[in-house]
Structures are given as C-alpha cells and as structure tokens.
C-alpha cells in the first residue's frame, strides 16, 4: 500500500492507502472526518466537496493516493477557534439547510465560489452550484446565503 503524506485541516497526516481508495473514504473511514458526505457514486450530488490546495474537489472523484502532498480542508476545518466561518453563519441565518446532508458540500463549494469570484452575482451562484444537489431546500435560501456569505467574506 502506498504511504501518502498530506495536510488535513492544518494537521499533518500520514496514511497507508490502498490504490483503489477514494479520497472521501480516506477522510471518512480512516481519518474519522465524517462531515464529508457521500450521496452518490457517479459524481453528481456534490455532498462530498472539499478543498484540495484551495480548489473545490469532489472527494468521491479523486483517489486518496492522488492527494499525496496536498493541503486539504474539509467542513470540519472551516470554523476557526470555535467561531463559524462567515459562510457557515450565512447558511444558518438564511435557513439554507434542512436535513443537512448536502450542507458540507454546499458550504465548501460556496466558499470556493466566493473566493474565486469576488463579484459573485446570483446567476453565477446558481451556475456555480450546478454540481451540488439539495433535495430539501429548493435552493433559494442557499443562494441567498451564498450572496450574504460572500459579502461577509469580502469584509
């Protein structure tokens, strides 16, 4: 089994991984980071989105072995010192989640969108969330939350 070293939520991690393991599996089953959810096996739902070297990635669509040397942030690593990230705050304040299952992926994707596009507008949010499915909210509150969260991130 290849041994990989990576940084997860700021902590150095070394792991023995089987070549066929998905990154989502490494995070959930071996590092105990169960906040990253798995909702499908065809890379459609986006519940598993994390940041790899600052970019949004569907962790079910990447092999663990490919993460050697990477800087990874999962939903667990977003809040700092017990304080919610502005995007997390915005989701809560705008009721952008119900069952919460899509939420980790939604939030990670939204943070990435807001970071990549400082002048994010509503159509860009809708487009940017194309790869993230939510069955509960009807998206409107998610879109509102992303707009508010993005603004808060800009400071």
């Amino acid at each position: 089994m290849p041994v990989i070293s990576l940084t997860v939520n700021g902590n150095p991690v070394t792991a023995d991984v089987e070549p066929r393991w998905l990154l989502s599996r490494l995070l959930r089953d071996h590092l105990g980071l169960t906040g990253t959810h798995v909702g499908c096996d065809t890379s459609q739902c986006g519940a598993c989105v994390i940041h790899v070297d600052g970019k949004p990635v569907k962790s079910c669509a990447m092999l663990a072995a490919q993460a050697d040397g990477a800087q990874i942030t999962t939903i667990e690593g977003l809040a700092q010192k017990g304080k919610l990230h502005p995007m997390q705050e915005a989701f809560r304040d705008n009721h952008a989640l119900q069952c919460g299952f899509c939420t980790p992926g939604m939030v990670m994707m939204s943070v990435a969108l807001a970071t990549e596009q400082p002048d994010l507008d509503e159509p860009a949010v809708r487009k940017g969330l194309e790869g993230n499915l939510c069955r509960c909210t009807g998206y409107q509150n998610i879109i509102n939350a992303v707009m508010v969260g993005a603004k808060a991130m800009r400071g």
Partner: protein
Amino acid sequence: MEKYGIGQPVRRKEDVRFLTGTGTYIDDIKPDNLIHAVVLRSPHAHAKILDLDTSEAETMPGVLCIVTGKDWVAEDFQPMPTKSAVNKKIDGTPLNQPPRHAIAIDRVRYVGEPVALIVAETLVQAQDAAEVVEVDYEELEAVTDQIKALEPGAPQIWDDIEGNFCIDFELGDKEGTGKAFETADHVVKLKLRNQCVTAAPIETRGAIASYDKDTGKYFLQNATQNVHANRDTFASVLKIPSEDLHHMAPDVGGGFGAKNSGYPEPSLLLYAAKKTDRPIKWIGDRNESFAADTHGRDQATTVEMALDKDGMFLGLRTRTVGNIGAYCWTVGPFTPTGGSARTQGGPYYIPAMHYTGIAAFTNTMPLDPYRGAGRPEGSFQIERIVELAARELGMDPVELRRKNLMPADSLPRKTPMGLDVDTGNFPEVFERTLKMSDRAGFAKRFEESARKGLRRGFAIAPYLECTGGGPKEFAGVKFGKDGSATLRVGSMSTGMGQETSMPQILSDTLGIDFEKITYVQGDTDATPIGGGHGGSRNMEVGGSAVLQCAREVLVKAKQLAAHLLNSNADDMELKESVFTDVKTDQNVSMADVVAASFDQSRLPDGMEAGALDTDTIFEREIISCPNGCHSAEVEVDPETGTVQVEHMWIVDDFGTIINPMLADGQVMGGVAQGLGQALMEEIVYDEDSGQLVTGSLMDYALPRADSMPKMEMAFYEDAPTAKNPLGVKGSGEAGCCGAPPAIVNAVLDALKEDGVTHIEMPLTPEKVWRAIQDAKQQGA
C-alpha cells in the same frame, strides 16, 4: 422569551452541528467490531429462483454469514404487514394482499428485490462475495404498466391473485354525479398521467443492527422516519416481542416519505447480527435508492367535469388506476384509493363528485407515500381539467377559477368527498396570490420574450389538501435542577427543524429558557409511542402534544408558584418567565419554580420532587386542511422545448405559523420537488424487460439551483383551525400539491397560440418540442 416564541423565525439549534460536519448520520456511526453487509438484488423484473448456491461465496475471504430465502423459510419468519386504511374492495371482500417477505423465497417480482444478504468483515469483501453467489433464474414475462397489467392475458404476478388486481374503491355520489353530467351544458374530459417518481433523499437509506446475547435484546439504528411502527414490523417478522428491539434514528438526511416504511433490509440485518454476534452495517448506494426505495404517484387517470353554460361547476368524475408495484408494501393501496379521493375537487364548490380508484400490481418496486401521497395527484387532476375547461369554453382561466371557489361563508363545509373543511378563505388566498403575481407587468414581459422568439405563460393553481399519518402522539418533558428541560417527542424531523420548533412551543408556553431545552426524538426507548413523520403531521400532532404537555406542566407550576407565594393557583399569571399574583403583585420566577420542584421542603403536600415532569399523549380527532394558492410564470423556447420557470408566487394557509422561516423552507422544498415532477423527474422501467432505466442521478434528473424560479411567499394566518390546540394545519406537502399544476398549466398557456392543449409530465424539452410539432401538423 419573545425572541423564541411561537411565530418567531428562530434560527435552528441543529444547524451548528450540521454546518460544522458534526452531525451524526447513519453512515457516521462506527461501533466497535463492526462488520458490513451488502444486499444481492434481483436483476430480473420477474423470475423463478430455481437454485441459489452460496457455497463458493461462503468460502470467500472475510465472509461471515449469508442470509437467503431458505433461512426465512427455515425460521418461519413472518411477512411484513400492510396497514392500508382502505382495505376492502367495493364488493366488501378484503383487498388482495400477497405475503411480503423481507427476502425473496422462490420468485422475484421486481428488479431490486432482495435475494441474499452477504455479511463480511469489510465492505469490499462482502461485495466480492456477492459477485460469486450463484442464482439460477427462470425468467418470466413481466409487466410494469398498471393499465397493461389489468388487461386480459397480462403476465400474472401472483398465482392466486387474478388479473393483478389489488383493490377497487369508490367515494361520492355516483348517481347524482351521473345526473349532473346528463344535464350539463358542457362536459370536459381529459386523460392524464401522474408519472412514477421517487423521493431521492440525498442521504440514501442505511442501518446498523446488533444483538446482545446476554440480554437477548436487539438494537437497530436506522435512517428512518418512523421508529415505533417499524420496530413493531421488524419484531413481528422475527417473531420477537417489540420490547426486545430498541430502534433509534440518528440524524436523518431527508425522507419525504421514502424513509417511512418498514423495509426488508433491517430484518435481514437483525437476523444476521444475532447469527454473527457482531454489529452489522448496511448502507444503500444511489442505485439501490432508485431501485429499492419506495416510489410514488404513478396514476393513470380519466377526469371529467360537468359545467353549466356560465361555467359553474356541476360535477366531477375521476377514475384512476394506480400502480402499487409487486406488493402492497405498508400503505401502498391507500394512495390511489382513499388517499387520492379525499381532496378531489380541490377548493372548488362542486355539488356532485364521484371518485373511483383501482390499485394494480405490476413488476416494479412497490409504491408507498411520497410527499403528498394522493393529494398532489388530486390537485393536479382538478387543476388540469379546470384549465382545459377554460380553454374549451373560451373563458379566462383565472375568472373560471374565481367564480367556482368555495365562498368563505360556505365554511365549515363537508365536501362531497367527506372532507371536513372547517376554516379558510379560498377567495382571499386566491386574490392575494394574484395580486402578488404582478399581472400588470405580464404583457411587457410577454413582449420581451416574444422578441427573443420565446413564449411566456402564466397559470394560477389554488389547492386544498389534508394531513395524515398516525393520530396519536406523545410528548414528555423532564426538568433538571439547573433549569434545563429535556423534551421527548414521538413525531420526528428528518430535516424539518423540530429540534427548534418544538422547544419554541415549550419555551413560549412555559417561559423556560429556549437554549436550555434539549430535544429528543426517534428513539423507542425515549417515548412509549411515536407516530414518526408522514402526512405533514409533525406540528399538527407532535406540536399539539408538546403544547398539551406544556399546559399540563403549567397547571402544576402555577400550584407550586402559589404555594411558594402563599397564594392561589388561580391568581397566578405567567408573563416573561415570571409568575405574578394578580392580587398581591408578589412574584416568583419560572426558574425558581423549577428549582423548588426538586426541593421537597419547598413543595406543597401531594407533590413529589420532580413534580413538574410530565408525560402526555395527544390524539387528533380529525385531519386538518392546509390550503393555498400557487402561481407560475414560465418562459418556453419553442425551438428547443426548454422550459424555464421564471417566477412563482405562493400564499399558504397553514393555520398558525410556529416558525415562519421553517414554514417557508417547507414550501420551497415542496415546490422544488413539485417542479421536479412537472419538468424532469420520472422513474422509467423498460416495457419489455422490466429493467429500471433510471437507476442513477445521470438518468433521473433532480432540480438544481438553476432550475428553480424566484419564489415569493406569504401566509394567510387569519384562519387557524380549531381541530388542534395549536391551530396548525400542516405545511410539509403543500408545495407538491400546488407547484405541478401551476407550472404545467403555465407552460400550456405559453403554448396556447401553438395549439398545444396537453403534455404529460414530466415536461422535458423533447416532449414540449414534440407537442409543438404535433400541434403544428394537426393545424396544417
């Protein structure tokens, strides 16, 4: 307390957990010594099992146990029960109900039916072993369409059930309705389908079972909406007393009905857990979710309306044939019969109505309630026929609806379907929706669309629905010395936010600190009974139980406060968490009363320490009638057939609103699922082979962020119901009732110049484009 009171948009307690990745869903739970299971499922829609050989699989690395139908027969395990409220045919004989075993015994009847459970040390080992289980099938002819299933000569799914017929049902005045049609100036008729869809929660189903051989008790953690009823189902299958099975639901990632029922897998897991003496986890994958989660809707309907020359409705006749799949499942036969009958005719005054519903078996995954279960179908039927009537009579569809709504002063009224509509104001809700819809600006927007070569349409769809699910609910509260309270309720949230809204009711009534209330649900050990979730009953029945419980606490708290102040309980008034004697102005805080309740020296005679702790059961006498109105504006590209829903306006009468933020969330989520059904979702089986064609998220389209319109919502709050102490009517399923007809009718309005009068759901670009082409040809 105001901030957390009834009617306030209190932010959710559960959110911090969900937002930081610290929620606990079923797949996040990892007991020590855990082993894993996969379900081997039938690849055939209909086949005999000639032989099932597990010998090679058993020798595979890590394999611990394989369960098959042979075990079920050897153990004499029982079939799972069906509890349809409609269970007699029109002729009075009982419905045809074949045995529903948790695992196929000698025949499979739908693709995805469990054939074996393979348990191994690791998931991969279980998957590998499943590959080498040898099943020798003899394929049989399959039928997946309910109309074909009822035809003579159709493949027979059950040897002893002739013609795949489960049950028929009728409601209303057949003769009177017949007369209305005879004397009518106009009769409008439409055949339509409410296609088969599925809930597709983003979290798939899954469970973990274990067995304690010292106590002889089983423990099941399960992504379910309903722990009590399903505990009883699994216990009856395994022939154990219900007390021997502790059933719990962790955080559940959405349900919408698909996590209601007692599924086969938990019984298989419980049995294997005892055999292996290890905790076993099974998590369904997305394909299993499509193949083996219950499906919904799937009705083929003929609806006819009789009108007089002025467009007044005289009669409604509906005849529907519902697919229920290969088994009766838990309440499957109810949906196309009683479930769809009750709200026929929607909020219109129709003097004569008659409904006939038939449930037929086919070789598909069985159907059970999906968000609305019959009411969305009823709403779609009436709104489509009204729209068509307006078109055929050359009337304005808005005007036709307006003049036929039940007048406010006609309530309370029992409809010809027996639905007790107590409160509401349909005309007012209709006019408000219309007012919000910016009709004045439509012409301009229409022109703008036309300039781009696009069509624009509008439709309005008032709806009337009703609640359902178990009528009884438990609520219990236990106080802590520190002023904390633990609230246990038998109804349950799978995302709707009861962890917040239920404490709101408690806090509002008792003036106790919202932040100090812990909410417990989904645990058969925590509440003696529980109806779980279904039929928009959470607030209606669960919330009412919480209110009743809080009021019982209040009676005792007043006595105690009076004792502490040396006055009379009747003189105690609770305001902002303080009891004040209205005569003497002396006061004592609720927090102090709670503290005193643990101090025997401060208690009056007859009260014991912990005297405020209260358990109660509320029972609903009669179901409530949520209602409202949706309108939709759509843009259609005639070149491609693409539909974009631009805007929706919605006014709902859910009675009292406990938390408007959460109620809005329910509406929008329901609208999204309604839009999904209207435009893109459909479970498709191959007609010949019975194979599931839509087995993944690539084949079954779900609405995405850019599919959704802007939604504007308002509540009509002037008509709380007296049917329960909270005055609530239920909000969970309304979106699925209003959105599909509003959207479909708006598309047809957009295409009226093209001559298109009907398109079956889902209105995919291909179907819309074809409808335009067909109309063109017919016109030419």
